[in-house]
């Protein structure tokens, strides 16, 4: 963060990566993947609008700090191995 007037740029410049913003708090439904049934097609990774799915050998790994729980992954999964579970359970 700039301190004095001289250090402040002429126009505001965004420099901090947005990963510091934990949008996971917006979530009402939590996606849970049954990795036994997963066929590793990565449709969930491909369509995630929040870039919250990582690719691993065992299947998708969710970034619950940022996942907003939209349910696209569960909807596009061809073998339906992703379940949306209410957060209050």
């Amino acid at each position, binding site marked *: 963060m700039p301190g004095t007037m001289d250090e402040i740029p002429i126009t505001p410049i*965004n420099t901090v990566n947005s990963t510091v913003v934990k949008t996971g708090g917006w979530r009402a439904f939590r996606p849970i993947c049954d990795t036994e049934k997963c066929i590793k097609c990565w449709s969930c990774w491909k369509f995630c609008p929040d870039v*919250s799915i990582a690719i691993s050998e065992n299947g998708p790994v969710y970034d619950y700090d940022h996942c907003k729980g939209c349910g*696209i992954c569960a909807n596009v999964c061809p073998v339906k191995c992703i379940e949306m579970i209410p957060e209050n359970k």
Partner: protein
Amino acid sequence: MMAKLTIPEEELMSPGHMGCLGCGATQAMRYVLKAAGKRTILSIPACCWAVMPGVWPNTCLQVPELYTPFETTGASISGIRAALDALGQEDINVIGFAGDGGTADIGIQALSGTADREDDVLYIMYDNEAYMNTGIQRSGSTPLGTWTTTTPVGVKGDWEKSPKKNVTAIMAAHGIPYIATATTGYPEDLIRKVKKALSIKGTKFIQIFSPCPTGWKMDPALTVSITKEALSTRAFNLFEIENGVYRITMKPKKTPLKEYLMKQGRFRHMPDDLIAKVEAGLDTAYENLLHLEEFTQKKAGSSQ
């Protein structure tokens, strides 16, 4: 880890952005950046994407971006290209990324100027069929019969009275080398079209159909599947126009329009006679497209 992926793995958009649940416009940006790569400069006017990178000092984009006033996307990308030319930097992609209101209504004269000057830039219109960022007001790109906050239906049937503006036809009239339509439901096709556009010199235009669960009043989980229904009901068509020659890139089997409309709250009030009128209009537009494809391809074949 050797995963078999159909789109590039590199991510230039970070999580933590301010897009709504199931936002189609964020998917569009993610795929466009995957296709364009790191050496890209973006220009974004007032639209959802003016807000979504985050509140200062945060940004979710790993490429430089310039916020511009609503009507100046076309002029700003021309200016960025002129500045890069003056600096002698030729290997940088300049992309304008504007919404449908900022393209079809407010930004059209600046875009027309860019196309007229034949500047070497790519203009992307992500089309969510209304001014979603300011609270779902109708735009030129809103289809016939839609509910928005400025076409509120009510007891008098005060829905959107004019069909969707044909922006690709307006751009085709400028005679630019490459025009395409794409949708977030088919990222491989979208990425191929963006890469192709960036390989061509001159002004390029791509319209990306990106669903907005908030403004369309639908389940955010349907963002991907609704684009497939939009294509099969002819509510949106995938094609490209290369030097005036049309090519329809996907010709799905026709399904009834009513199924597509009833999944979205913005269409649920529509009476059957209005649905029939809309469906007839969409079918005519698709037939015209088929004729254009046949005619322009035959003409291109005979001139060779």
